[in-house]
């Protein structure tokens, strides 16, 4: 039985089809989850994809946090369900307090879309287990509000416990503190990532296939379990 990975669609989600495609390419089964349906339909992991949920007019992710599906996701995540939030999904995870800190407007105040080098710094999460420690990868980055911020204590804790999952290389593209591109919760099952690995799973349509590891990771870990 292939691992079943749910991909949530909020109104305004954009990269949900891309995330589903990445899941399939990694050999898992993608299951679409609807924001208004609280059921997770027995999936083994959940992806909150990129986009502009509910328009993101107030603060990114602020409204999505209150959707019926998120009530269930929050509870399941606290019980250890692997959850990956990409871009807007990362913002939703922060707004939902599954991850600390917040994401604010890029320091240069423009939307940025580029091929972004990253370094993977934690390979013990279900999403990053197929990478090597300190592996450098390139995946697309595209956001207007991707600056990660948190207070000093939180930052120190993230650093001390290896909870910075990915860090920007070759220049900070959005003003994120400590060049942080992605973090995880204490338990490691919840990962938030600003860049888009789901856009780097086919050589033809992305900068390469470096992003596939995030999806291979969750497919593999669950199979072994």
């Amino acid at each position, binding site marked *: 039985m292939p691992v079943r990975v749910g991909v949530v669609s909020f109104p305004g989600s954009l990269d949900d089809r891309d995330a589903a495609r990445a899941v399939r390419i990694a050999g898992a089964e993608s299951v679409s989850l609807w924001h208004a349906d609280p059921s997770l339909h027995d999936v083994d992991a959940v992806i909150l994809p990129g986009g502009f949920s509910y*328009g993101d007019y*107030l603060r990114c992710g602020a*409204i999505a946090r209150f959707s019926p599906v998120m009530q269930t996701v929050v509870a399941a995540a606290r019980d250890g369900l692997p959850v990956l939030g990409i871009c807007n999904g990362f913002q939703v995870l922060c707004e939902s307090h599954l991850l600390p800190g917040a994401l604010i407007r890029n320091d240069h105040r423009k939307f940025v879309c580029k091929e972004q080098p990253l370094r993977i710094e934690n390979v013990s999460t279900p999403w990053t287990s197929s990478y090597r420690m300190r592996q450098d990868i390139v995946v697309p980055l595209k956001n207007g509000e991707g600056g990660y911020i948190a207070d000093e204590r939180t930052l120190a804790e993230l650093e001390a416990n290896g909870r910075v999952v990915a860090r920007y290389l070759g220049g900070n593209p959005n003003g994120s503190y400590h060049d942080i591109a992605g973090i995880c919760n204490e338990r490691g099952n919840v990962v938030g990532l600003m860049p888009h690995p789901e856009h780097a799973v086919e050589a033809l349509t992305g900068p390469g296939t470096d992003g596939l590891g995030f999806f291979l990771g969750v497919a593999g870990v669950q199979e072994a379990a």
Partner: protein
Amino acid sequence: MARVVVDVVLKPEILDPQGQAIVGALGRLGVHGVSDVRQGKHFELEVGDEVDDEALARIADTLLANPVIENFTIRR
């Protein structure tokens, strides 16, 4: 030195998608009784005493607000 507050709001006839989104979210949150929300910008300026009302109005009109679609108020 004084703190001056400038609030910038969309003109009433202009569509405010932000405000609409919040009204919608409140409904889904089960909060009732909020019939309309308009979202604007709020600026807090630290200004020296040499900056008079006229200068402030010019700052608001050229930089803080877009007079084509927004109105502003200044509080000293």
